[in-house]
C-alpha cells in the first residue's frame, strides 16, 4: 500500500513517498515518481487512486502556474494548500478525487511549511504528517524522534528510520522510496532509497 510522509526542518521541508505503481496483485513499476514539483518552491506528494492522483496533481500544478502568469507573483504555500483543498471540497459531493496530499513549500518570509490534505478535503498545517498504512509506523517514529529545527542530516536520518520501519513491518511493503526537499534554493529531488533495482535489459 502507498505511503507518503513529510516533515519540516530548520529551513527546509522534506517529503518522502514510495515509488510503487500497483494494480490489484500486479506491480506495474517500482520507480513511479509521486512527488510533483508544483512550482519552483513547492512540492506535492500524493497517494491514492492512480488516475485521480495524476489528473488532480497536474490540474493543480497548471492552475498554480496560471495564477503566476495572471498576477505576476507566485502563490504562497498556504494559498496553494487552501486552493487544493477547495478543489477537493467542490468535487467531494459529486465526483470525489481519491487522492491524499502532503504539500510542502518554502516562502521567503514564512520559511518552510507542510500541509496535510486528505481525500475528503480536510487541510491541516503540521510539522510532520503521513498517509497510508505506512503512516502507522512513520508517525510513531516521527513522534518519538522529531524535534523542531532539525538539520538536513538529522531529518534524513529520521526519514530513513521511518522507511526502515515501513519496510520491515508492513506486510506488502513498497521496496523503493523517493525523497524530495524544498528550501530557499527551490524544490528538488534529494535521494532515492532502493531495495529493488530494475534489472538491466539485455541487449538484443
Amino acid at each position, binding site marked *: 500500500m502507498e505511503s507518503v510522509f513529510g516533515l519540516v526542518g530548520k529551513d527546509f521541508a522534506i517529503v518522502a513517498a514510495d515509488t510503487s505503481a500497483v494494480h490489484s496483485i500486479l506491480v506495474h513499476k517500482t520507480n513511479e515518481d509521486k512527488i510533483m514539483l508544483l512550482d519552483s518552491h513547492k512540492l506535492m506528494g500524493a497517494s491514492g487512486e492512480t488516475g485521480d492522483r495524476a489528473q488532480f496533481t497536474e*490540474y493543480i500544478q*497548471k492552475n498554480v502556474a*496560471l495564477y503566476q*502568469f495572471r498576477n505576476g507573483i507566485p502563490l504562497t504555500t498556504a494559498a496553494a494548500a487552501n486552493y487544493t483543498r477547495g478543489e477537493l471540497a467542490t468535487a467531494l459531493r459529486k465526483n470525489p478525487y481519491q487522492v491524499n496530499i502532503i504539500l510542502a513549500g518554502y516562502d521567503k518570509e514564512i520559511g518552510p511549511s507542510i500541509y496535510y490534505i486528505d481525500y475528503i478535503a480536510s487541510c491541516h498545517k503540521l510539522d510532520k504528517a503521513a498517509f497510508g498504512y505506512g503512516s502507522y509506523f512513520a508517525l510513531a517514529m516521527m513522534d518519538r524522534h522529531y524535534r523542531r529545527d532539525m538539520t538536513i542530516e538529522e531529518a534524513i536520518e529520521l526519514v530513513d528510520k521511518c522507511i526502515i520501519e515501513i519496510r520491515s513491518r508492513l506486510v506488502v511493503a513498497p521496496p523503493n522510496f523517493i525523497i524530495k526537499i524544498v528550501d530557499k534554493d527551490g524544490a528538488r529531488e534529494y535521494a532515492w532509497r532502493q531495495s529493488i533495482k530494475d534489472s538491466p535489459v539485455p541487449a538484443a
Partner: protein
Amino acid sequence: MARYDRAITVFSPDGHLFQVEYALEAVRKGNAAVGVRGSDTIVLAVEKKSTPKLQDSRSVRKIVNLDDHIALACAGLKADARVLINRARIECQSHRLTIEDPVTVEYITRYIAGLQQKYTQSGGVRPFGLSTLIIGFDPHTGTPSLYQTDPSGTFSAWKANATGRNSNSIREFLEKNYKETSGQETLKLAIRALLEVVESGGKNIEVAVMTKEHGLKQLEEAEIDAIVAEIEAEKAAAEAAKKGPSTKET
C-alpha cells in the same frame, strides 16, 4: 453605407465588414509597437504615452508573458487586450495539461486569431479592437518566431513588424534597415525603429527581450536610456561621416 455597419454580421454590397475596418482604425490610434526577430533573440518595444505624474507606471505593463516562452505586445483597446491575454494564458496551461507539451508560437497565435475571428461572425458583439505581436521560441526546435494578428482574425509570421500609431513609417524603416541580427544588435534595431516615431528617452518606451535561456526580460529605464544614447551617438557619427569627409583627413 451607414446601413451596413450596425450589426457586423452583415456584409456591405461591396464586400466590406465595416465593423472590422473600424476596429482596425482603433488599432491605428493605439500606441506604436514594434517586434524584431533575431537569430537567438526576439525584441518587443512599445511606445509609452506620457504617464500622468500620480500614476504608478509599474501597474501599466504593455508587454506581457503568456507562458515561460511566449510573450505578447499589442496596440489598440487595452481593456480588450486584458480579455484576450487572459484567455490565451488559460489556453497555454490547458494545452500543457492535456497535450503535456508547451504550446508552439504558431498554435497560440492561431488560437488568439481564432478568438478574434469568432467575434466578427457572431450576433450582438463587436470585434476586439487590437492587433497583437506575439513572440516566442519553439519549445522543441528552439527557433524564434514573431507573429502578428489583427481584428479580422488573420495572422502571419514576420521577421520584423510594427502595429499601432505610425506603423507604416516604422515598417518602411524596418524594410530598409532589416538584416539578420542577434543579441544586442536585434535590440538596437527594434529601438531604432521605434525611435523613428517616438520621442527618444527611457521613459517613453517599454522594451522587453526574449531569449531561449532566460525567457522574457523587461529592460529597466536606465538600460533603455543607455542603449538610446548609444544609438544617438552612432547616428551622430554617421551624420558627421556623411557631412565632412575632409575633416577626417589629418
